[in-house]
């Protein structure tokens, strides 16, 4: 191993002119650049999906019903030539499908692992790159390719199947095949991106940990990414075959899922949820990892119950494979429903353990309130609601009422958005200085976070009530009695949008005129804070040597910090290494 790198510039340094720079980024195998490209692609897709969500909420502003004279009012996005109710509804149906498919396949599944994970995993492990850098670039291009498929389907008019593509509706709707097939193939291709990323991460964690880093010296973010990568590898191929069979079904009508040909539509649901339930944990586990790291660093406190959190990540990953049936309590056999309900409750245990540990971590800490920490606290608040409202959904007798209602919609938005997206926001702010070498405006960030928090709760708390009161999901029109709650929810969606626009502005301002970031602005102990901000091309000048745990705040002074400014507790300091190993400082 030669051990030298040609130059020591930051990875963001431009290589020649515009064309050369674009070519450099397009062909890069640097995990940091790939991570950043993912981040921007995902944020763009988040914007698209978010716009669809805003449109969905606008559409639901009024309880559109066709009036007795055949005309109908209030349907905002009705095509100009639509003459019937069903054409107007069809537009709404394509809209929510668009929102769901984009948000699930193109935003939330890749969000944290592909962007933050790609950027941070080798840095945190003290490695130069992921195990297979070219494969990493390939998965990025597969992601782009799959997204293009899906976007093509949208341009051609969109699909109205819902993101779940339930048969036989998805195989019989929409007389020309191409749109559904394109969307399904897009999801199929995106699955490969997910598989390859997960596989890359597992191998990296196994093979490329820095010397001295045992399994229990890894940051909890790595544990979470590792657990979710296992799910990605084991569950995604099943959606692959499911979607492939769906395409066969659609094109050749092979009939495995089609009751008209002797197949079984509920079998499709099993196939689909065998992937799509575990993937919920692909979405949330990395978010939990981000929160573990942010909470510990921002409260300068050793995390409580490191091993419990690490093992609960693995536990959630394991249990996630045997609870998919709770999406089908209304279509399964009674015995299977009972078994799946019991297993579903199992998943609550490791999740609860994590929440308890996080709260215990704050105890006796020194808690900095800044944007990432605020987002972490918001995560705890929203995720707790999301988790607790899972109880009535997992309970069989109440689920029969709440299933496929707005209660479910609210529940999974609290988990997926209140969990994953909020954690992504926490992570972006936490590692923003590391990624781009610039600080952002803290006040602006905090205001944005608070607006998002308020908007989110207005939007989705109302939907719990809509659900229990009997409002089914995926309805283009509804009874008057739900109008006020729907309108409140729509107003909330605007507040939510405003919050994200504030963040957009803060980020742009940071690029334009942000202060230069120090290597370790928050005082973290993990290895990414050893590197410069932004890191150099091969991450570290010298291969780091790990001598302490990731959260030993009470015995170790964080790298790049002056020990004078950071006294460590007397009781623990005696005889222990007082300075983190930081090769570039020691060298």
């Amino acid at each position, binding site marked *: 191993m030669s051990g030298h790198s040609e130059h020591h510039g930051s990875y963001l340094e431009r290589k020649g002119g515009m064309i050369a720079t674009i070519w450099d980024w397009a062909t890069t195998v640097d995990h940091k650049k790939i991570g950043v490209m993912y981040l921007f692609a995902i944020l763009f897709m988040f914007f698209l999906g978010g716009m669809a969500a805003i449109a969905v909420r606008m559409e639901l502003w009024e309880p559109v019903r066709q009036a007795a004279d055949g005309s109908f009012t209030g349907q905002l996005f009705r095509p100009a030539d639509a003459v019937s109710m069903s054409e107007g509804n069809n537009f709404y149906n394509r809209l929510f499908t668009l929102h769901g498919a984009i948000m699930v396949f193109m935003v939330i599944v890749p969000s944290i692992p592909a962007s933050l994970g790609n950027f941070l995993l080798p840095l945190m492990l003290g490695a130069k790159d992921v195990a297979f850098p070219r494969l990493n670039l390939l998965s990025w291009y597969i992601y782009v390719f799959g997204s293009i498929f899906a976007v093509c389907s949208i341009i051609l008019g969109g699909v109205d199947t819902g993101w779940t593509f339930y048969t036989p509706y998805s195989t019989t709707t929409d007389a020309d095949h191409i749109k559904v097939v394109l969307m399904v193939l897009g999801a199929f291709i995106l699955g490969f991106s997910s598989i390859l990323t997960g596989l890359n991460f597992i191998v990296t964690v196994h093979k490329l940990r820095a010397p001295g880093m045992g399994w229990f010296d890894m940051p909890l973010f790595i544990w979470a990414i590792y657990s979710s990568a296992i799910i990605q590898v084991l569950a995604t191929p099943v959606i692959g075959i499911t979607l492939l069979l769906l395409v066969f079904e659609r094109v050749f009508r092979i009939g495995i899922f089609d009751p*008209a040909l002797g197949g079984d539509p509920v079998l499709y649901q099993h196939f689909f949820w065998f992937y799509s339930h575990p993937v919920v944990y692909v979405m949330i586990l990395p978010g939990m990892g981000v929160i573990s790291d942010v909470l510990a660093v921002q409260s300068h406190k050793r995390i409580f119950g490191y091993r419990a959190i690490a093992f609960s990540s693995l536990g959630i990953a394991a249990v996630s494979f045997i609870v998919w049936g709770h999406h089908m309590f209304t279509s399964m*056999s009674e015995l*299977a429903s009972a078994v*799946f309900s019991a297993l579903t409750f199992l998943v609550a245990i490791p999740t609860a353990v994590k929440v308890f540990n996080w709260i215990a971590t704050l105890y006796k800490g020194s808690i900095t309130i800044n944007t990432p920490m605020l987002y972490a606290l918001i995560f705890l608040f929203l995720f707790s609601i999301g988790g607790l409202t899972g109880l009535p959904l997992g309970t069989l007798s109440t689920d029969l009422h709440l299933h496929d209602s707005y209660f479910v919609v609210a529940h999974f938005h609290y988990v997926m958005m209140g969990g994953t997206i909020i954690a992504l926001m926490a992570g972006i702010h936490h590692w923003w200085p590391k990624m781009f070498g610039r600080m952002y405006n803290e006040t602006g960030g905090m205001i944005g976070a608070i607006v998002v928090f308020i908007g989110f709760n207005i939007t989705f708390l109302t939907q719990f009530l809509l659900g229990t009161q009997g409002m089914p999901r995926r309805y283009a029109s509804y009874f008057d009695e739900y109008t006020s709650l729907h309108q409140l929810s729509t107003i909330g969606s605007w507040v939510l949008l405003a919050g994200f626009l504030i963040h957009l502005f803060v980020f742009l301002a940071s690029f334009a005129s942000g202060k230069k970031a120090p290597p370790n602005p928050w005082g973290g102990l993990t290895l990414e804070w050893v590197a410069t901000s932004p890191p150099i091309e091969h991450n570290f000048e010298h291969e780091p040597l790990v001598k302490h745990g990731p959260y030993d705040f009470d015995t170790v002074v964080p790298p790049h910090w002056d020990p004078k400014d950071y006294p460590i507790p007397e009781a623990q300091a005696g005889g222990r290494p007082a300075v983190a190993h930081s090769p570039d400082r020691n060298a």
Partner: protein
Amino acid sequence: MAHHAPAASDHFDETDPHGHSKHGQHESHVIVGPFILRTILVVLLLFTALTVGIAQLEIAIQNWFGIYLPWWVNVVGAMSIATIKSILVMAYFMQLKYDNPINTVAMLFCFFALGLFLLFTGLDLFTRDKIYDYKAGPVVAGGTGAGVVSAGGKPIVEASKDRFLVKLAEPDVREAMITVNALRHEVHELGKLGTDAARQAAAVISARADYLSDLKTIIVKQIEPGELARSAKHLRDRAAELRAGAASPAADLLEKAAQHVAGVNLAEAAASYSIDATFATLASFAHGDHGQHAHSGEAASTSDRSRPRAGLTDALEVFGPAAAKPQGGH
């Protein structure tokens, strides 16, 4: 046994400058020798023969002794042999035995996940009848056919039978079948002559008969309008060739065959070769009348192992042996 990396090192000593300094590279490499590989191949082939043998044996004892083994004997037997074979492939061909154990762990996790998938999916689908038995079975066996254009609202198997019966009733299909039967008769006559020319002529007619009687010609594509004329011309040409070679009896028969194909004397041919019986048999098979008693109610039951295909083959033999050829693929 196959761990002879150090021995291998002196082979490439001169080509690898790091041969001694970087032994670490070869520690994880394992060389599995040809003897082991060949042994495994032979064992695998033997197991393949064994699994086929067991399946055939089971059918044989059913046919000869009327002994019906429970269904799981067949399944468990075949699957355990397949499992053993796959373990051998993974352990030796894929070198899992010598590899980093983490690879084995990955594979075990995968099989575990697959097991969960099958188990819990089955848990639902096989227990639908636990409370109300009518929840278990399909409403229309074979599917409702709703929305399937070709089925017109019928189960797809029923629709296919309907189409076949309609097709059987079509005049040109009927004509082709009569022709084929007549041709078979000519082949039989030619066989009696015993000359080389007759054998040659018989081969020509047989080939045409095979072509025309091919089930796919009847079932799948309509007989093209020019097809019979082309066949007749072909036969006439061959007859002319034979006549030039002065083999008139065979040439006469060829000429007669050509007439059959061209549609002359078809009514006579139909009468003499009991073609209506053939139609009746085929139609009854398409209707499933013959299948009925073989599958009466409980096709699933282990006590019912008679093979529906045997009866069908009988029916097609009336029609012509070539007709049975394409189906079953042998």
